[in-house]
């Protein structure tokens, strides 16, 4: 590299900040990564992702949205948005292995972690390469998360955990797990008696079974816990306060995380038209179908920008309404748009191609992107649950 980059010093001058990121990305981004990473599984992919994280760390952008206090760059919100816009614009790889580490873990620890916990674990993310996963859902507690049955029994200075988790993204790579477990069995409301722990994934009794998804990728896992010991120091917040704390974790899925995804799709949408210009864009019907998606894409981008504004104005108290509407809009739109692309490509779309990691929902392998869209309609509270919430909580229709 012929020059060093000082992106952070450009804060105050948006244009210069943006330009510096572009210059940096032009030299620092992994070359031809979509081709080179295609088909890689976790073990071979991980070093590449670590290297890319390292590049970002060099310019202070490993954790662009973190405050200075915890090792982040402390960027104003508007500049955080610029960072994500530019990463998207350059089609930089997503740090999907680090999603929980970068978003859910800090969203939890910033607000609820003890000073010791923050010091110990946050630096593992900013200065190291700690990978975190989330242990919330269980086979019998999916949409009905509060029905979870994994138990944590206090024994002296530690807890003994038994149970099973599922849908844990990246658990096969993780050092630590954000774990919800029941510390009290006899409760009036199932949301009570749940506690929140940091679990060491290397602890005896922890077993991880990766689950292959319908795209053929190993993205999430089951975690089996058999008399796993967790030190009481690793309880986050008070015993029994887990449900409340979990809301902070879940709120991390809002905002910048989804912003990256939709902006990537917006770029991909432009490319789709160019790619199709000599084939399906010449069919007047397909062309209209495509044109109709323009409005839908705009709707989801606008909803997210609105959320970002709300977050900027009041980072701690965003109403849950907007994220619900975003989820109900984004998932189905993504599914219908990717399905449209599958139809547009005809038989070619059906040929198997190895997935490309780190591309979120825009690997541009149409069938894979279509299949992956279910992640947004099923996971994180299925859209069926979201519709109940809209009808009952926001529109005041009576519970069944």
């Amino acid at each position, binding site marked *: 590299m012929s020059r060093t980059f000082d992106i952070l010093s450009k804060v105050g001058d948006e244009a210069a900040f943006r330009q510096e990121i572009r210059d940096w990305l032009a030299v620092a981004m992994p070359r031809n990564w979509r081709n080179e990473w295609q088909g890689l599984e976790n073990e071979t992919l991980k070093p590449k992702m670590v290297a890319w994280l390292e590049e970002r760390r060099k310019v202070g952008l490993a954790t662009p949205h973190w405050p200075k206090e915890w090792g982040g760059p402390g960027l104003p919100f508007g500049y955080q948005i610029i960072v994500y816009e530019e990463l998207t614009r350059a089609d930089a790889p997503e740090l999907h292995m680090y999603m929980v580490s970068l978003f859910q873990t800090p969203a939890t620890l910033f607000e609820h972690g003890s000073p010791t916990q923050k010091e110990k674990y946050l630096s593992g993310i900013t200065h190291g390469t700690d990978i975190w996963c989330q242990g919330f859902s269980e086979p019998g507690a999916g949409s009905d998360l509060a029905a979870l049955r994994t138990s944590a029994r206090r024994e002296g200075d530690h807890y003994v955990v038994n149970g099973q988790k599922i849908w844990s993204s990246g658990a096969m790579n993780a050092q630590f797990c954000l774990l919800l477990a029941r510390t009290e069995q006899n409760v009036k409301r199932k949301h009570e008696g749940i506690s929140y722990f940091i679990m060491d994934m290397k602890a005896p009794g922890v077993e991880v079974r990766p689950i292959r998804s319908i795209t053929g990728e190993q993205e999430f896992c089951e975690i089996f816990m058999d008399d796993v010991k967790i030190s009481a120091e690793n309880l986050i917040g008070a015993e029994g306060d887990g449900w409340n704390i979990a809301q902070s974790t879940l709120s991390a899925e809002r905002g910048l995380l989804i912003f990256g995804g939709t902006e990537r799709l917006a770029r991909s949408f432009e490319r789709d*038209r160019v790619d199709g210009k000599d084939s399906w864009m010449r069919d*007047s019907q397909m062309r209209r179908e495509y044109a*109709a998606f*323009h409005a*839908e894409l*705009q709707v989801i981008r606008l909803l997210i920008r609105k959320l970002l504004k709300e977050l900027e104005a009041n980072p701690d108290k965003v109403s849950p309404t907007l994220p619900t509407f975003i989820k109900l809009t984004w998932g189905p739109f993504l599914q219908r748009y990717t399905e449209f692309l599958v139809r547009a490509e005809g038989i070619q779309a059906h040929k198997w191609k190895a997935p490309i990691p780190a591309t979120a929902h825009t690997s541009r392998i149409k069938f894979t992107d279509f299949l992956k869209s279910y992640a947004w309609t099923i996971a994180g509270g299925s859209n069926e649950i979201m519709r109940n919430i809209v009808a009952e909580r926001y*529109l005041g*229709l009576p519970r069944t």
Partner: protein
Amino acid sequence: MSDTIDLDLLDESFSELLATEWPRERSVAYAQSGGSMAVDLWQQISELGWTALTVPESFGGLGLGIDAASRLHRALGAVAAPVPMLGTTLTILLVAHAASDRQRAAWLPMLASGSMRPAFAQPSGGWLEIDDESVSGVIADILDAPCATHLVLNGRRRDKACWIVLPISASGLSVEAHPLNDTSRTLGTVTLSHVSIVEDAIVLQPEDRQVADLLVHSSCILLASDSLGIGEAVLALTIEYLKIREQFGKVIGSFQALKHRVADHKTALVGARELLAYASSLDPVDPAGLVHAISAKAHITRVVAEVARDCIQLHGGVGFTAEFQPHVFLKRAKLNEALYLTRNEALDRVADLLEAA
């Protein structure tokens, strides 16, 4: 200009008056009685200065922009008001941007006061060849022509595009009224037989087509606004009904299948509102502004027509009667879908603009 005014306050004042002056019962009754417009409502609206909303301040108006007009049209859609506001808003725009000083001085105060009530021909509805002295021809299906005081028609003179502004009383001009299924509006087919044309009746189109684009942009925004108003209103009254109507010993709003449909409608309307606000905030002659406006028109009029369609179903039997309001909204929503640009025309145009970008 609009940022000196709180648009949400404007909304409130629109809605408040209309709730009083054009309540549900009047809307339902009007739909059965017919007529080409609600004359008294127009008068009230004019007196309150709503017709002056987008007239430049120097001509007695409030000088507000398309975003404010959007709020007004949304409010009118929300009560299915039988007033010919679209022609007024578009004419003000045309005159303010393309007319001569004399024309402005003549028309804008009349537009502001509501005493000039023009019907504005659909951009895609054909044009008239004007010779130096007179014009003849037929222009079909002009919205609100049967209740207009003036007509604004597309023309061509000496190979240049222009608009002609004619009083309805012009000699040689006749209007055949077409009642609509949407009884809150009418169409008229205009026949011109050697109608004399004076220079002051002609507004020339500037070379750069900006005004033509501006009119397409604005008509799309306004029809989308009208539809959004319809959609929000018909969904709200349907939810209200679901909360009181009982079957099988339960309020029907407690049935999950209905809840989910209503939730999807609500989600679609929340998105539509953002889209409309954004599209009406963009520079209208910028290609991006134009594409968003057309795209919003196609999207919102479609979404709302579908919401209105299901709201009849959600009402069950009473939804099928002329005695409840949903049909008023459905008919108006369906007409908005077809007006000015059909969905297919709109999407073709969106694709053109995206490809050209």
